[in-house]
């Protein structure tokens, strides 16, 4: 399962959020999707998920658009910043609603809650959840269908250091299982520890796509390359 972005352009009225971006995120690897605020990372992910309609081009999952997937949640797991939670719903019930459409048993819901460390808080309503807990719940939702492709927007947001380390281990494990893991993030230090492959966007355009090591092997290599590639105005 690969994510292929092909000549993707997206305009929202007069604003061009993404301009002719093409890259492939390979299976079995963690791909870091990097870029300054407003660079088009989130729009690219949303286009891949069928939430926004491309102006030109496409974003395909295993060669087909999201709308064509027979079992969406079993193919793609997504964690987006705007994926909302109803404050009055219990965490476990939030996942049970998703499980119902995916044809998954409640047993699977309890499994992922355990995996992300929310087993104890499962029957509390989301209203009382901290940011870190909401993130974990969102991750649980992404993992629910055991998908071959994971699209995660700032997954470490709100996690404490132990959580960040746990997430890093989880992402590497998922990639090791042959899954395609795409992580959009601002945390360059964390990405340089986790990712095999990076895609750098700036001003809606592609600046770099390739193995992380191509940018240099020293500790600060990713940061220097990133700042250089994203500094110049288009």
């Amino acid at each position, binding site marked *: 399962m690969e994510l292929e972005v092909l000549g993707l352009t997206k305009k929202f009225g007069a604003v061009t959020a993404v301009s002719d971006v093409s890259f492939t995120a390979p299976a079995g690897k963690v791909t870091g999707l990097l870029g300054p605020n407003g660079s088009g990372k989130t729009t690219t992910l949303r286009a891949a998920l069928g*939430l926004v309609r491309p102006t030109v081009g496409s974003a395909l999952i295993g060669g087909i658009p999201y709308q064509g997937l027979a079992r969406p949640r079993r193919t793609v797991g997504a964690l987006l910043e705007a*994926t909302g939670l109803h404050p*009055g719903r219990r965490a476990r019930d*939030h996942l049970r609603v*998703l499980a119902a459409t995916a044809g998954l048993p409640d047993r699977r819901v309890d499994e992922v809650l355990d995996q992300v460390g929310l087993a104890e808080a499962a029957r509390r309503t989301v209203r009382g959840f901290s940011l870190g807990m909401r993130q974990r719940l969102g991750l649980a939702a992404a993992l629910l269908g055991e998908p071959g492709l994971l699209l995660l927007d700032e997954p470490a947001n709100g996690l404490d250091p132990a959580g960040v380390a746990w997430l890093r281990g989880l992402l590497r494990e998922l990639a090791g299982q042959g899954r395609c893991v795409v992580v959009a993030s601002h945390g360059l230090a964390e990405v340089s520890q986790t990712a095999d492959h990076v895609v750098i966007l700036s001003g809606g355009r592609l600046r770099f796509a390739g193995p992380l090591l191509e940018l240099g092997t020293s500790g600060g290599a990713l940061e220097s390359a990133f700042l250089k590639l994203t500094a110049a105005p288009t």
Partner: protein
Amino acid sequence: MVILRSEFRKLTTLRAPWLVLAAGPLIVVAGVTGLVESGGNVRNPAVQAQALAHAGLAAIITLLFGILAVAGEYRHGTITDTFLSVPARGRVIAAKLAVYGVVGAGAGLVSSAVALAITAAWWAAKGATLHLAAGDTWLTLAGGAAANLAFAVIGVGLGALIRNQVAAVAAGLAWIALIEGIAGQLLGPGLARLLPLHASEALDRTNILGAGRLLPQWGGAIALAGYAAAFAAVAAVTTLRRDVT
């Protein structure tokens, strides 16, 4: 179908929608009580009909309930998850129409039963008999339940069209409280009776609007069904192509 199951599960895992629906029977009880307390003559069959027609008034509540279906999801951001689970958005709207319609119909039946019960209670308290044999009685109660169903479906469509929950609720209430009345005066009695609230009054066999002309009950049913279908269709079509940002 799995979509129906998950839409139903969305309702059973929350309290708020049921609290909204609970207001319907409460309005019925308050309305009938007010009618009697303000000097309604319980021996007048027209007053009995008016009491039972309160079941239809509860349709305002099922309208609000229906609005929650889509606009509520936009409000809390859960619409993203919904469209990720089911990218075929037309099917999502269809499932919501079905589930909220069924629950709205159920709420209508409850409001009708409560209308009958509270009317019976008051009539007994005043020493009058309730005329159950009159064909009017059951038509009124059935019409009231049907109005609840129609408004629930219209609410789903309205919420899908306007997306902003507060705006959709405001639009619905403003129309009922004010706008349809003005529109009715501008259009004249012939056309006014085709407007949704007028149609629902025809369906409920009541005339709180004081309209000069109303459709026959079956005409009101058809008109409301038309509004429900129109809102549903427009909602589905506009939802299909919209970006979810």
